[in-house]
């Protein structure tokens, strides 16, 4: 017979329904409410300065509630804690610290650059069947990121040990870009627009149209 404590552990709600983590927005809202209660809504600068350097680096809106983008990828790592350290150190991501979820079987974190976001978690069949490139030896996706000052970004990434797999160079469509692998082999494409483009959507369609290799 199963031990009574073990039975109790088994009916823990998030074990019965482990499928989805809570919405990180809940924590973002909770934090924003706490800060406005503490410092008053009129004093966002104080809140951001005192609370976390993350907010200061996180571009616009110290007190303004940032919303999650409609689409963001989730990447899997054998060692998601190390990945979090690397991505913030080498690539300049800023963690939504208040959203971090720590479980005995893995951490979830949300990282931002500009208005974009990625989520990272532990790899494994039980974690939505997502695997680390280290374990499968292949990639099926790449994350594209726009940054400011691509040269400084590149130097920092290289100094922190990112494996550069495509050199920093200016491309005919007006981007300066490079690609790098993180320690578990996820591939990242970093770019900055360096030539003034017409203020129109469809960046990649100028001139002779989109060549097949442009997106890969």
């Amino acid at each position, binding site marked *: 017979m199963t031990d009574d404590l073990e*039975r*109790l552990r088994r*009916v823990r709600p998030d074990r019965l329904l482990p499928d989805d983590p809570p919405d990180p927005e809940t924590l973002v809202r*909770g*934090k924003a409410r706490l800060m406005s209660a503490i*410092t008053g809504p009129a004093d966002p600068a104080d809140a951001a300065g005192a609370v976390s350097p993350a907010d200061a680096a996180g571009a616009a809106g110290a007190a303004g509630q940032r919303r999650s983008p409609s689409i963001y990828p989730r990447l899997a790592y054998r060692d998601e804690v190390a990945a979090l350290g690397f991505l913030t150190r080498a690539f300049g991501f800023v963690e939504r610290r208040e959203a971090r979820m*720590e479980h005995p079987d893995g951490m979830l974190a949300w990282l931002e650059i500009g208005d974009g976001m990625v989520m990272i978690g532990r790899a494994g069949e039980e974690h939505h069947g997502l695997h680390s490139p280290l374990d499968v030896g292949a990639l099926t996706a790449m994350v594209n990121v726009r940054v400011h000052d691509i040269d400084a970004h590149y130097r920092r990434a290289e100094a922190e040990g990112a494996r550069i797999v495509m050199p920093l160079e200016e491309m005919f469509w007006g981007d300066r870009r490079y690609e790098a692998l993180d320690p578990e082999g996820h591939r990242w494409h970093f770019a900055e627009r360096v030539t003034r483009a017409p203020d129109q959507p469809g960046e990649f369609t100028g001139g002779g149209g989109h060549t097949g290799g442009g997106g890969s």
Partner: protein
Amino acid sequence: MEESDGAVIAGSLETPGAFGIIFDRHGSTLLRFLTRRVDPAEAEDLLGEVFRIAFERRSTFERDRDSARPWLYGIAANLVAKHHRSESRRLRAMARVSARRVLPDDPAERAVAAADAGVLWARVVDAIGTLPEAERQVLLLYAWEELSYEEIASALGVPVGTVRSRLSRGRARLAALTRERDTAVGVPLAPFAPCDAGGDR
């Protein structure tokens, strides 16, 4: 080397905004705790309450304490106790889920027909709801939150010996309740019978 929670909270007496660091460190743990215990919709409100209360009482937090987590758990557990109806609803909803759910990683369960196992889990959940409040708090802080005896004592403001005795009384009661129900084979549990309609309240 991160500053201890005690130092951060002491600092927040001068610079209130620094208290946000305490939310960063423990907000998600407390949200998870509350989501386990009350209606998910209510959990968000209670999370706000926990930190509002903690902020107001921050001058009582001892500076040399490393972690504010047990203290925050204590505030949260107290709020859960005051929202007993929501807690009961949460347990009823869980019992319905567990009655249907087959936990694939459980060797004990494979020995039993899946449907019977589901009924067993529903009974465990049912039994949780019938425990005396004080025992339920200690049992769930121990089994679900994985706090130590010392942390539970500090959270609830009782001696460690009290934690031990409540835990062992609670365990015995839970085992008895579940055993009793184990033997009542074939008697469907009225509130948890697999009728979804109208089972929300």
